[in-house]
């Protein structure tokens, strides 16, 4: 076997390699670093909100910077690089090619992330991850804001290069014997999410440049005192970032499509409907962006159009849930750690989607908009669905990456704590939002219900935090000292040989 573990290589051999599994490993390590850094900020935010008044964060500006960097880090430096990590490891294997289509471009796309990471963390901007104009143009303190803009610019270019690489690898380097319709659903998820990325991202890239020239005083696209329109920024922003939500969630669904059938010991219920749902979502996902903007003074007609666009994206997601449940139905399910994460993720995906239908209904949106309801809602997606799918897949791919097995008991404890914590935190945040607490606030008036719910949420967040500490210990210890895995069937599921071929980790160039 030629795994990293058996044949240790110096770190620069991995860093300067362009082999897909090496770049995948770099993506993986970066994304986990971002997970723990962004997660620490989340715990600090929760501690500050445990009681009204100032706790240990001395001023509101620091707090505003903390939640801005928390969001930016976990979306752009954890979720996206994690998806790229898995894609790099597995897409070439799934389409039966020796590497990504453009190995050097692949390495370049990765190496744009560390400087962006540094810019975002050294700047520590305060204008929320939305960077709404005109606050971001006229009031946000520099150089933090400008560093954030440059950081996001780099990440945008990196994502576009990565997306091109996945699309070309899948469509042009696919083995001629493998028809597109028989390609695994995980590879399909990369194809569709990369296509969405390629169409959506340039809009925000343009908006970022306009924001920068506005800040420099060279232009006034979004600055009302120079005749610009701040709402135009919101349209450009959400035209990219609503579809981006699907870019984040589709690979996580793809992870579950790999995990669920393996541990249910049954083939997927319907391969065709999985493909159809991916393709459908990637098209209708572009018809709903302005549902984030009902409160900006949109006309009744505009709101109606975007409500219909939003609701029409629901059946595609519902089809995935059906497919998972129908696959598990009557299967001999083995609840290993990856399977527990996947099933928990599906349950939370369903809850998040149901809450989303409420948001999209126009009259109800005015109750929930910019309140803690929305915070709870999208965290059920990013944490409950995407991070759960990602953790499950990290445990699943762990033997392939390291040649060793993680500690199963600690993995299950990690899941149980995270699941309890997630339900405590994000379901309660929905209710807190209905009680009227706005998001992004450093301090709140001492309303008894608000205090009680905030304390409950903070306790839930601490439970997640302890679970994550166990997770960190588990992966660090197990990657060096864990039990050696049986590389054909690490979990004794006992079907035919199915696990990823470790031979593919030998570099060809």
């Amino acid at each position, binding site marked *: 076997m030629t795994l990293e573990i058996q044949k240790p290589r110096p770190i620069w051999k991995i860093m300067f390699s362009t082999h897909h599994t090496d770049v995948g490993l770099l993506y993986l390590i970066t994304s986990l670093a971002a997970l723990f850094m962004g997660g620490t900020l989340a715990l600090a935010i929760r501690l500050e909100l445990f009681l009204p008044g100032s706790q240990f964060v001395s001023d*509101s500006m620091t707090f505003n910077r903390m939640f801005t960097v928390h969001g930016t880090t976990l979306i752009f430096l954890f979720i996206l690089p994690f998806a790229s990590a898995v894609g790099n490891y597995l897409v070439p294997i799934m389409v039966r090619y020796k590497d990504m289509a453009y190995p050097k471009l692949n390495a370049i796309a990765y190496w744009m992330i560390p400087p962006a990471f540094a810019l975002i963390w050294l700047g520590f901007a305060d204008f929320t991850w939305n960077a709404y104009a*005109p606050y971001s143009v006229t009031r946000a303190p520099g150089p933090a804001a400008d560093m954030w803009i440059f950081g996001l610019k780099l990440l945008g270019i990196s994502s576009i290069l990565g997306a091109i690489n996945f699309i070309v690898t899948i469509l042009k380097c696919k083995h001629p014997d493998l028809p597109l319709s028989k390609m695994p659903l995980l590879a399909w998820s990369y194809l569709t999410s990369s296509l969405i990325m390629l169409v959506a991202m340039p809009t925000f890239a343009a908006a970022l440049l306009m924001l920068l020239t506005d800040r420099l005083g060279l232009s006034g696209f979004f600055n009302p005192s120079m005749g610009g329109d701040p709402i135009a920024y919101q349209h450009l922003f959400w035209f990219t970032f609503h579809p981006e939500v699907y870019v984040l969630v589709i690979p996580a669904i793809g992870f579950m499509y790999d995990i669920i059938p393996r541990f249910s010991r049954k083939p997927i219920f319907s391969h065709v409907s999985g493909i159809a749902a991916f393709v459908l979502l990637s098209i209708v996902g572009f018809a709903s962006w302005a549902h984030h903007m009902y409160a900006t*003074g949109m006309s009744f007609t505009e709101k109606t159009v975007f409500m219909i666009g939003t609701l029409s994206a629901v059946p595609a997601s519902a089809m995935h849930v059906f497919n998972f449940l*129908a696959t598990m139905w009557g299967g001999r399910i083995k609840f290993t750690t990856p399977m527990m994460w996947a099933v928990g993720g599906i349950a939370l995906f369903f809850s998040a989607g149901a809450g989303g*239908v409420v948001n999209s*209904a126009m*009259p109800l949106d005015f109750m929930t908009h910019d309140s803690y309801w929305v915070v709870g809602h999208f965290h059920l997606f990013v944490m409950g669905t995407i991070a759960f799918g990602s953790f499950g897949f990290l445990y699943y791919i762990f033997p392939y990456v390291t040649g060793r097995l993680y500690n199963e008991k600690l993995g299950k404890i990690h899941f149980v704590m995270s699941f309890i914590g997630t339900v405590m935190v994000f379901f309660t945040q929905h209710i807190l939002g209905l009680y009227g607490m706005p998001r*992004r606030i450093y301090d709140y008036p001492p309303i008894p219900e608000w205090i009680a719910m905030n304390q409950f949420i903070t306790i839930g967040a601490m439970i997640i935090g302890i679970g994550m500490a166990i997770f960190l210990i588990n992966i660090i210890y197990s990657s060096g000292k864990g039990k050696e895995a049986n590389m054909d069937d690490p979990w004794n599921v006992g079907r035919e040989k199915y696990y990823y071929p470790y031979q593919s980790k030998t570099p060809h160039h």
Partner: protein
Amino acid sequence: MNTHSNWPEWIYVGVVVALLIYVGAEAWNIERIIEHIPSDAEIIQVTGQQWFWTFEHEDGTKEIGELHLKKDHAYKFEVVSKDVIHSFNIHDYVVLVDAVPGRVNTVWFSPDESGEFDIQCREYCGLIHYNMRAKLYVDDDKS
């Protein structure tokens, strides 16, 4: 590929679509009704700026940080901003609209309970966003 029949999935998708159509139609109808502003609504100019609210009644009286209204009257807010985007929110009455510089956004309500209510900013607007609050007093007198 899949040789088995897929009718359960079609039924399921049908049920989901029917539910969504119901939610959408109901939301459309309610929004249509509640967006209709009564013609006798009194106009109140609301100005948001970092980090307080100013209210101007039709008779020209101005209030800062508090707003006195009468029960069972209709009020139409014309919401503007002097600097960055704020969001004018009376949570107990589900009054919510952004204060966008360069635009006038309108929203209306008719208080049906007297008492004291919170007015807050729901869109991030900088340093003191968390404390950009005002008080709404709804008085009972029928003058």
